[in-house]
């Protein structure tokens, strides 16, 4: 239950502004890939093109190909809704649905699509997803309480549970720990390590230690200057990026000598 992603010659635009230029990258199934780079270099923008969330913003468009196990996400007639149900996403700020209980948040992907599900199956799915997100023991006695009453770290894990409850092939994470304390961050990093047994995980992070800890491969994005498009500078095994990068700018960035 996981697929690989092949991106070729991808250009991402906001209106006339080219935000990301000519990205070619291959993301292996059942691996963790980290995107690092300075703010504004297009990591998050690129990540959002991988499940067609980019086009939600007015004026945003994409040129190029993104293949999910060989199927082009941007081919004519592809329904973005189908794409998104296969490629889940976890956002920077935890965003549980405020009108729903913890249980309903986990079942949101099922309930919002009005799919019928027997009660016992729903219970099993809630438990499986919450266990998968390492949250079950903390919330099993208060599944009826609103999701917004949880702590920030718990909310983020609830959002991960919500994402895995629809059994996607790929999970995209956009700086999932940037609003969290170190302990919650650790919990989520442990979780990412477990998730890669079943899913393809792509994570954007500003925290290089985090990239080094959780990822198998790392992609470094950079930007030549304000108003210029972001580019993929280097993509290699994480150990290579951090210890023996081939590009000067990568070395400067990972060693903190940037800018």
């Amino acid at each position, binding site marked *: 239950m996981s697929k690989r992603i092949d991106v070729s010659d991808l250009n991402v635009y906001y209106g006339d502004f080219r935000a990301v230029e000519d990205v070619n990258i291959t993301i292996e199934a059942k691996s963790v890939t980290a995107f690092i780079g300075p703010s504004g270099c297009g990591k998050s923008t690129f990540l959002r093109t991988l499940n067609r969330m980019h086009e*939600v913003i007015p004026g945003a468009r994409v040129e190029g190909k993104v293949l999910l196990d060989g199927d082009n996400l941007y081919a004519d007639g592809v329904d*973005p809704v*189908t794409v998104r149900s296969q490629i889940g996403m976890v956002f920077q700020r935890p965003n549980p*649905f405020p*009108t729903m209980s913890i249980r309903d948040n986990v079942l949101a992907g099922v309930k*919002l*699509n009005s799919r019928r599900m027997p009660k016992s199956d729903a219970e099993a799915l809630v438990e499986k997803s919450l266990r998968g997100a390492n949250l079950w023991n903390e919330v099993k006695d208060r599944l009826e*309480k609103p999701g917004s*009453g949880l702590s920030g770290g718990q909310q983020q894990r609830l959002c991960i549970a919500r994402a895995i409850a629809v059994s996607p092939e790929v999970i995209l994470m956009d700086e999932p720990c940037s609003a969290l304390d170190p302990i919650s961050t650790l919990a989520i990093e442990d979780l990412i390590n477990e998730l890669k047994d079943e899913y393809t995980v792509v994570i954007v992070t500003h925290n290089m230690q985090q990239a080094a800890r959780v990822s198998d491969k790392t992609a470094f994005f950079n930007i030549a200057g304000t108003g210029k498009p972001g580019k993929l500078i280097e993509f290699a095994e994480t150990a290579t990026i951090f210890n023996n990068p081939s590009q000067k700018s990568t070395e400067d960035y990972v060693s903190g000598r940037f800018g």
Partner: protein
Amino acid sequence: MATLMTERKRSALTRGRLPRYTPYVIAAAAIVIAAALMSLIGFNVFGWAVLSAVLFAAGNVISAAVVEGRRKATDKFATSLVVGAFLIALLPLVSVIWTVLVNGVPGLLNPGFLSSSMNGVTGAVDNASVKDGTPVMGGVYHALVGSVLITLWATIISVPVGLLTAIYLVEYSADNKFSKVITFLVDVMTGIPSIVAGLFAAAFFAMILGPGTKTGFVAAVALSVLMIPVVVRSSEEMLKIVPNELREAAYALGVRKWRTIVKVVIPTAISGIASGVTLAIARVIGETAPLLVTAGFASSINMNVFAGWMSSLPTFIYTQIMTPTSPSNADPSTQRAWAAALLLIILVMLLNLGARLVASLFAPKTGR
């Protein structure tokens, strides 16, 4: 060796501060001086109260300026201004409620006022009740029914139109030209005088159903012209403040846009939308002019909004005051009018309370 410092009896930090009882002393002095001054120029309670208040404010500011310094004096001056403005704003409100209560309660408590109509209540009946000193006959039931039905139909028309317009503007339009035109027209509609809305509905139905068509439904259409812009505006604001993150969260789960709107965006905003709708109802339930030209007046109960003239509370008040049932003895009509006015205020107040109740019922739940 460090010794513990004991607290000083008179703190150096409170030097140059007026003692706590100062305002009470100034208030007492102000009341006495005002009474003395008023007795010189002719005493009345209202002037006494105003003069006391002015003297109290002045005394407060001056004493602060002398003892506490400029900053405190400015503070007291500003506080006096704000409190004064508040009291002035409150005056008409209290006065209106008081007048309506005093004049309306006797009529409202009259047995049968809420349960009978004006059917068969003629000038002779009123003359008799004045002459014999018996309770005033006739009631407001038909007008209450009319008001409720007309407003209900206006709501049934306005809420879907208004809410769907707001959804289009916020969720689908992406600020295109068309949406700017709609927004402009909604703003124009907000400013339409209510009598114009009434004339529009009357003329419209005269065109399609023949001249002189006056029914509750025509009135409901007139009211919905007034109500739709209010509903659009309030729902639009409420939908706008739903965080985009929630929409994106739903999209990322593979939920379609319209399902996201119906199941995530609207439930999140429903408390605000519901209270906006209730306030819009409260705004139109007191309209008089459009009802006069669209529903006419009736003295008997009419439960059918699609046929026949219909009375409503505002038009009931208007006709009772302008054309008393008994021209020679207007008092029973005046009493009925005040009672109906009180009933209308109570109705609007209940609607406002209802709006708060609805808002808190639908509000996103908190708690751990």
